[in-house]
């Protein structure tokens, strides 16, 4: 058992040595694999960031209910209290008509126009913050119910753009998987072709080994390890590229999303993504080597 482990370790290190003997072509192959892995991983990180952003939606999901003029402040407060007890609603804030007017007057865009008015044209307003667990459907139902009330004039809730955002995120998520599968296929082809050339270059060594009684598994192993190393090193490069990319793009992107009002926590390459990049790279590299080995190794039989 220990001997087997030692042999695998020797094989793994031997394959690494083999790669280091052709630094330029190795570096190029790794660069291509690294980019192929970094692309879907980068998208994945962006989607994760967007999802975290979507998690902090409460603020933008806040909506206003304008009460019918003539409704008293006491009535407004009673309604607010009643609504606040509901499961789908986290809290209700009452903005009295005069508070609203004061706010508007403070705004230079409206201030002059409002000063001309003698009466306060604004109604009392309820600002409702839905519970984090409330779905778009819940909110739509809540809107219908409130709009139907006699004391409610207008419910201003735009669930449509929330739905759109969710749909876009879903689309992008699928796109990430699709790209990932495509690029994994590309990695398999790249590694397969590189290993094919490698097998051709080492034809003599393979022939001699087979003459000396090497099994197919023995002959295959170094190439599989080379494939695996390509995958692992490509994965490493992908993680580095990704981290650099986020360092460059993360700041501006955070600011952009913050403009949409989310409590944005920033981007980061999480452990799961790193594991996925390395695992995907390893698997694709190994698979590519397998394809090459299965197709080209058995064709080499010793000639004497």
């Amino acid at each position: 058992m220990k001997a087997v482990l030692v042999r695998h370790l020797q094989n793994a290190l031997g394959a690494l040595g083999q790669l280091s003997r052709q630094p330029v072509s190795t570096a190029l192959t790794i660069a291509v694999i690294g980019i192929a892995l970094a692309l879907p991983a980068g998208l994945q990180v962006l989607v994760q960031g967007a999802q975290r952003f979507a998690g902090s939606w409460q603020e933008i999901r806040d909506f206003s209910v304008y009460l019918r003029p003539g409704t008293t402040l006491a009535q407004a407060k009673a309604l607010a209290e009643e609504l606040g007890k509901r499961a789908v609603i986290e809290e209700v804030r009452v903005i009295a008509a005069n508070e609203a007017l004061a706010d508007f007057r403070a705004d230079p865009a409206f201030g002059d126009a409002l000063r001309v008015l003698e009466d306060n044209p604004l109604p009392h307003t309820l600002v409702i913050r839905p519970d984090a667990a409330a779905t778009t459907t819940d909110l739509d139902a809540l809107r219908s119910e409130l709009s139907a009330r006699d004391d409610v004039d207008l419910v201003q809730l735009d669930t449509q753009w929330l739905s759109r955002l969710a749909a876009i995120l879903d689309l992008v998520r699928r796109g990430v998987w699709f790209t990932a599968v495509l690029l994994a296929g590309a990695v398999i082809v790249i590694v397969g072709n590189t290993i094919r050339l490698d097998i051709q270059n080492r034809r003599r060594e393979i022939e001699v080994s087979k003459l000396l009684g090497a099994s197919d598994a023995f002959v295959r192993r170094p190439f599989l390890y080379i494939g695996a190393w390509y995958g692992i090193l490509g994965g490493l490069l992908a993680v580095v590229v990704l981290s650099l990319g986020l360092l460059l793009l993360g700041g501006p992107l955070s600011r952009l999303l913050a403009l949409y009002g989310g409590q944005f926590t920033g981007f980061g390459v999480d452990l799961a993504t790193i594991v996925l990049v390395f695992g995907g790279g390893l698997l694709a590299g190994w698979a590519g080597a397998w394809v090459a080995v299965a197709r080209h190794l058995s064709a080499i039989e010793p000639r004497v």
Partner: protein
Amino acid sequence: MIQLDRVTKLYRGGREALRDVSLDINPGDMIFLTGHSGAGKSTILKLIALIERPTRGQLLVDGRNIGRLPSGDIPAYRRQIGMVFQDHKLLEDRSAFDNVALPLVIAGLTRRETDKRVRAALDQVGLLGKERQSPATLSAGEQQRVGIARAVVARPRLLIADEPTGNLDGELSMEIMQLFRRFNQVGVTMLIATHDLALAGRIGGRHVVLSQGELAREETSVAAPQPAAGVRSR
């Protein structure tokens, strides 16, 4: 140990390289296969190494017909046989030591055991001081001796050699043959294909003569006495 029982070999293209050849190889034999070019000497060796399969007849090893051995079992079978080639088939990008170690690496021996055995084998062929050199920096005779060390390092029961002295001049050829003789004296069965009848005659052993793919005759000669010095007891 190995019996060819009325073995016929037809190569693709219909060329009949061997016809009804029967030959018994016994443990401890020193056999020279001779005959004109194209007589079928290499073909017999290739059949024994399972590089080619017999078309008809049986190839028995320890009583088992290996003519139909599944290809998955060929590697393990080949590991019991040492092979020496005219062009020695050394790997140029590895040192003499690494070339000799290859059969042991394939067999999965530990580093320590490999080290010990490779040194012993190189010592037996008189190349212990040149283990770090690449084959390209060795003379033709030395290259062939590295090839022989590689063939014996895994302690095979049988050593087959196809024209092992084909590229060497008289003096060196004699050296190589004496090396084989010494390995034979410590128990390795030898099967050597050669054109060099005179040389084979000086070494002694069984001389199997092939002609047109058939066994023409067999003679036994006794060698001039050779000191067995230089080969360690196995």
